[in-house]
């Protein structure tokens, strides 16, 4: 009993430490979201509801504009589809990893944002026995930071006495470190290079607002070619 407890507390500790960079990045982004939403006339209840039920950083920023503009439901649905289609990739990547996660699984899937994915797409740190508990706690901690920050931003965001410009770079830095860790842990660098190149080229061609879906299509096509080669290699 005691042993089990200490094992779980290890998962708790490691999940908290892993989530610290996200706490740094989210603190700015979520407070900024709360402030922006409030400035458009949507108070703390809206901030809370959106961060609890949508929980998607860049989408919530866009949603403020959609709300303020009073766009049609179809426009809102299509925008969410375009901006968040990348979440399909997270699901496909986590099917095996989240298998048999039991009662925690629905929440783990619900909370699968960019940041959670970057922390959960690899094995948990050494010493963590219950990996699904670890993934669950990382997801929960991250959303808590996001929800709390949104509420704080909505209530008192306007009176922060110092400039926080630039702190959100913590999330970019997090993604770069995960990219490097993944790079070091594999000999096959083609998928990583495909991701960078396809996205960069599509960004140049389609622009910042429209490049994600074309980039995803190119990535899928290029990676499928790798599968074909692998298959025919096995048959030969």
């Amino acid at each position: 009993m005691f042993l089990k407890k200490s094992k779980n507390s290890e998962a708790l500790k490691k999940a908290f430490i892993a989530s610290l960079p996200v706490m740094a990045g989210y603190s700015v982004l979520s407070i900024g979201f709360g402030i922006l939403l409030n400035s458009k006339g949507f108070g703390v209840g809206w901030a809370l509801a959106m961060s609890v039920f949508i929980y998607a950083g860049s989408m919530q920023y866009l949603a403020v504009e959609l709300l303020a503009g009073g766009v049609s439901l179809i426009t809102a649905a299509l925008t969410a589809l375009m901006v968040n289609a990348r979440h399909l990739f997270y699901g496909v990547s986590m099917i095996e990893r989240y298998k048999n996660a039991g009662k925690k699984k629905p929440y783990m899937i619900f909370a699968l944002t960019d940041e959670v994915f970057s922390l959960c797409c690899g094995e948990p740190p050494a010493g963590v026995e219950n990996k699904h508990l670890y993934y669950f706690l990382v997801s929960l901690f991250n959303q808590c930071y996001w929800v709390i920050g949104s509420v704080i931003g909505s209530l008192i965001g306007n009176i922060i006495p110092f400039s926080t410009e630039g702190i959100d770079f913590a999330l970019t830095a997090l993604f770069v470190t995960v990219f490097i860790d993944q790079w070091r842990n594999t000999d096959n660098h083609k998928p990583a290079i495909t991701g960078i190149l396809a996205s960069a080229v599509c960004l140049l061609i389609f622009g910042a607002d429209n490049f994600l879906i074309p980039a995803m299509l190119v990535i899928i096509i290029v990676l499928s070619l790798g599968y074909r080669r692998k298959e025919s290699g096995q048959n030969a």
Partner: protein
Amino acid sequence: MPDIHSVLLVGVIALVTVGLRFLPFAVFSGKNKTPRFIIYLGTVLPFAVMGMLVIYCLRNISFLSLPFGLPELISVLAVVLLHLWKKNTLISIISGTACYILLVQLVF
């Protein structure tokens, strides 16, 4: 009384977003075995996705106008070098972010 259209807007955005997250699990997590192609994608996609996310974070920098994306490029380079050298995630992120804050608030 919040206006109904805004409530519906939030609801639609939440449904689409959460739907996208659940869809792969709903399609492939049933009793049938996951197709081998999907398992293959699951093993290679994370590498491609992290590359895509890094580009996504840098999507709004402009190389044609001041400061030519220099704060971002310098800070990303700092993170890369530090991480290759020290292999410590927290050190890399804190230093890179501090570097970026100094650059955007004091230099550029």
